[in-house]
């Protein structure tokens, strides 16, 4: 089945749209500029931002995993060569 170039780019890079989430959440300051609900005595303003550190990292992991899988699949199919591309341990 022939895919157009646009479809290929979309299939390959759509996970990157997830990166809109941390930007939207962090730039929308009025949404978290409040004290309640507190978490173990910490005002919402503080723990919400600290929570987004973890969520932001998780989103990067998700995007990385999806992209790496598709890259490996394409490499197996002989479409691309990833020799010398970063990702080796140590």
């Amino acid at each position, binding site marked *: 089945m022939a895919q157009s170039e646009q479809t290929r780019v979309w299939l390959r890079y759509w996970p*990157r749209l997830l*990166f809109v989430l*941390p*930007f939207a959440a*962090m*730039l929308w300051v009025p949404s978290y500029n409040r004290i309640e609900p507190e978490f173990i005595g910490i005002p919402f*303003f*503080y723990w919400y*931002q*600290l929570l*987004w*550190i973890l969520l*932001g*990292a998780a*989103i*990067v992991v998700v*995007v*990385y995993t999806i992209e790496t899988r598709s890259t490996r699949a394409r490499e197996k199919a002989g479409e691309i060569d990833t020799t*010398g*591309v*970063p*990702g*080796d*341990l*140590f």
Partner: protein
Amino acid sequence: LTLDWTATAIFVALFAFVTWLGFVAAHWRKGDLNLLHEWGLGGRRFGTVITWFLLGGDLYTAYTFIAVPALIYGIGAMGFFAVPYTIMIYPILFLIFPRMWKIAHERGHVTAADYVRDRFDSRMLALAVGGKSGVGPTPACFGSRWRRWGSSPRCLISPFSWSAWRW
């Protein structure tokens, strides 16, 4: 003045460990330090784990431990800009750095100034980038040390970053 034995013991133990680690690391996968890419980039042999620690060392600097807490102490929650900033900068780096890594690897760049000089064929722009990477940390340096040491002379040394020297 009483000596805090717990704090002293932890400090001495960590100091000894880091010193020992430094001497061990000096012999680990030794390279020719007369070559700039060996001295500056570890011979381009660092992989994911080592790079992860290096990025951690980049992020958790005196800026994180002294300047930002001092700012929050001084003006309050406004200093929390550093947290959203860090959250947003990582996706940007995730998109840009692998591509930049590949180009720098292929063309043999060591610093950002090298990349700019090659990409835009401009020595002046490369000098500006190298100079910026040297001058950039200076205000944070002064800011964090202002109260303790006044205008610390060490902050004036930082503009002479070696990255500008290759111009």
